[in-house]
């Protein structure tokens, strides 16, 4: 119940009575009570609006004025300095100088009517706010800059449906595209996922369900491996698959390198999610006589499903964007090669890297277009991960809740059908239990109490 509803209920229930009492007193219906020992405060007319909640926030108007004034003063001061006193030396200097003078002026303004700790508090708040803003600004700049520079290539439809076989170094943007790189990326990440998901989830199940010295050791190693430099993962696959086995650079080798990168990330995230599954669920399943693997398969994994999906998608987002392991293992080719098991196969990050190494402006524009495509791909994966994984285990969406209710109804019907089909001899044994249990939700708890009391 919200506060507003509560307040309305209170008013509906109690206020009329009070008014009524006051009326009685005024009109003198009962003269004995007209001279009470306590005086009832005179009730004015009922207020039109509900009382406003008092603001418990700590920001005051004077603080906001001080901040705004300091900002204006700092801007003006910096403009004077940069136009009159010193030559204009780039935007960076302007911003840094303006910021420093803002902090100084703000501290000065606050110190007029506050003491030392309060001044330090305001300055710390200003610094923390600007640092947080700076980091997020960095993200926005990186994303927008890539999209902005990539727009030249992205507006050409052929960019998405052609490969680079026909596009020489001097061809305009209307020839050639990155279709081969998109296919390569999807195939490589697909193979990597086909290896990573079963193995990663299995390992996470092992860590969560079979605790012991060995699983602690595996967990330590996996945690250490999340910091494995990506180029070292590429080097490892290059040394084993390409040089030793002689498989040659290919999409498959690249996906193995991506697997080595993704596996620890997926295992770690899945491990956390599986450990979040409430122990009481496991215990309930075991208490019903289920074996351990049935508990894992039918209780633990379904409960952790959304979290596992998040783990996999976050790992995928990292894997899709990795350049350095692919650089050593995939090989650069300009044409379409849909077969990941033979021949060189490029991917989006590697294609970006190849494009921007060229001095040609069109190639660099293509590089930015490729980077923007890659980033949009990562962004979509990320949003999907957040949408799936926003809830903890056991929390259902409305549709999932509906589906579960429907499933429960079907179960009930199935039970009843089976019951009516069973021969009378066994029915005599089982029938008292089942119908009762199904009727139970409809019975009011109060009825039970009355029965027991009687």
């Amino acid at each position: 119940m919200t506060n507003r509803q509560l307040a309305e209920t209170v008013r509906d229930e109690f206020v009329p009575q009070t008014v009524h009492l006051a009326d009685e007193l005024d009109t003198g219906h009962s003269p004995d009570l007209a001279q009470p020992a306590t005086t009832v405060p005179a009730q004015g007319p009922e207020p039109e609006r509900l009382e406003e909640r008092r603001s418990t926030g700590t920001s005051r108007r004077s603080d906001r004025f001080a901040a705004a004034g300091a900002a204006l003063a700092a801007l003006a001061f910096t403009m004077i300095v940069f136009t009159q006193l010193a030559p204009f030396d780039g935007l960076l200097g302007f911003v840094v100088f303006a910021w420093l003078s803002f902090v100084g002026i703000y501290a000065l303004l606050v110190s007029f009517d506050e003491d030392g700790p309060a001044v330090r508090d305001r300055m710390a708040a200003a610094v923390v706010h600007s640092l947080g803003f700076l980091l997020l600004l960095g993200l926005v700049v990186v994303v927008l800059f890539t999209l902005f520079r990539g727009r030249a290539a992205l507006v050409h439809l052929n960019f998405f449906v052609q490969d680079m076989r026909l596009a020489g170094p001097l061809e305009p943007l209307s020839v050639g595209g990155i279709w081969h790189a998109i296919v390569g990326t999807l195939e490589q990440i697909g193979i990597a996922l086909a290896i990573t998901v079963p193995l990663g989830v299995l390992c996470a199940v092992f860590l969560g369900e079979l605790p012991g010295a060995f699983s602690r050791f595996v967990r330590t190693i996996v945690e250490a491996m999340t910091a494995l430099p990506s180029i070292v993962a590429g080097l490892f696959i290059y040394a084993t698959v390409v040089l030793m086995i002689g498989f040659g650079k290919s999409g498959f080798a690249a996906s193995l390198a991506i697997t080595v990168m993704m596996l620890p990330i997926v295992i770690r995230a899945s491990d956390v999610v599986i450990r979040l599954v409430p122990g009481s669920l496991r215990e309930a399943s075991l208490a019903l006589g289920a074996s351990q693997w049935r508990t894992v398969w039918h209780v633990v994994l379904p409960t952790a499903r959304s979290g596992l999906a998040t783990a996999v998608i976050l790992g995928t987002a990292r894997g899709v964007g990795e350049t350095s392991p692919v650089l050593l293992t995939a090989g650069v080719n300009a044409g379409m090669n849909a077969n990941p098991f033979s021949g060189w196969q490029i991917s989006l990050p590697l294609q970006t890297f190849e494009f921007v190494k060229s001095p040609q402006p069109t190639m660099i524009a293509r590089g930015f277009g490729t980077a923007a495509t890659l980033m949009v791909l990562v962004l979509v994966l990320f949003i999907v991960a957040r949408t799936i994984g926003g809830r903890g285990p056991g929390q259902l969406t409305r549709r999932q809740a509906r589906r579960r209710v429907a499933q429960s109804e079907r179960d009930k019907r199935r039970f009843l059908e089976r019951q009516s089909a069973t021969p009378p001899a066994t029915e005599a044994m089982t029938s008292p239990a089942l119908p009762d249990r199904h009727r139970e939700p409809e019975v009011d708890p109060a009825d039970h109490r009355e029965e027991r009391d009687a």
Partner: protein
Amino acid sequence: MAPSAAAGTTLPSAPEESPDVPRRTVDRPGPADLVFRAVARSGGLLVLAIMALVGVFLAYRALDAIEFAGWSFLSEQRWEPESGRFGIAAVLVGTLLIALVAIVIAVPLAIGAALYISEYAPRRMKQTLVSLVDLMAAVPSVVYGLWGLFLLQGNVLGLSRWISTYFGWIPLFRVDGVDPRDPLATDSVYTSSTFIAGIVVAMMVAPIICSIMREVFAQAPAGEREGAYALGATRWGMIRSVVLPFGKGGMIGGTMLGLGRALGETIGVYLVISMVFAIQPNIVQNGGSSVAALIALRYGDATPMGISALMAAGLALFLMTLVVNFIASSIVARSRSGAASEA
């Protein structure tokens, strides 16, 4: 209970001679469970084997080069495997310098952003901000490299010049062969420097550090926060006396994890830096080096010795990040266990 209970039940008579022995509570797993456990264990073993193989294979392939070069592998600056003169002294120093610049820039940013998200941001925006920082960690490194190469480099040269002009007396910031009073000097001595590569890497590692710090800050006990406020602390006073001391372990651990990531960054560094194979401590001057960028640059070497030398460099990088990461995770783990013991 009904009063007739005594009649219906029989009280067990205590046996005189046999003492109580605890009942065995161990239950024999069925065949399905045995299979399940075996499969799960083998999954763990397989992952462990993959991880171990990485180290073992690198060491095995690197053996030739390390045996050939001996101790000079650690002291030699040049990288000419064909003539037999190669060592990681220069690239290792370059890697450390880039990571150092990255950490110096990223840590204050990350602390500020983490404090903002956990202490200052409006509650409604908190989840959005957390997602944004996570998204920032998921942006591909090649995108950061592009940003560093095409946007940052042009805008940061003025800052480089300013640093070298006024702080050039510190050896770290000195730039050789440049006269600040020369009006015709070009900015090209400041391009492709360790400093710029460090900024790019800082942008990549800051979100990782930030998310670890935010987690630790959020765990600071509410009772102590309220206690600080009740004693009249300002918000900053509360942060300084409760949140920061409480999150110290996580801050150190997060920084170390970021350091581990910064040591291994490849593509961003490769795109920005121009490799020099000599110890180059002047961080704002053109030229620098890093182990990961060296591997990306030279992996095409056809000679077996060249490949083996690269494997040795990769092994050195691998061991370095492993050590840093082990220290980091143990510090973070200890700070978490401290969080559990309060209340």
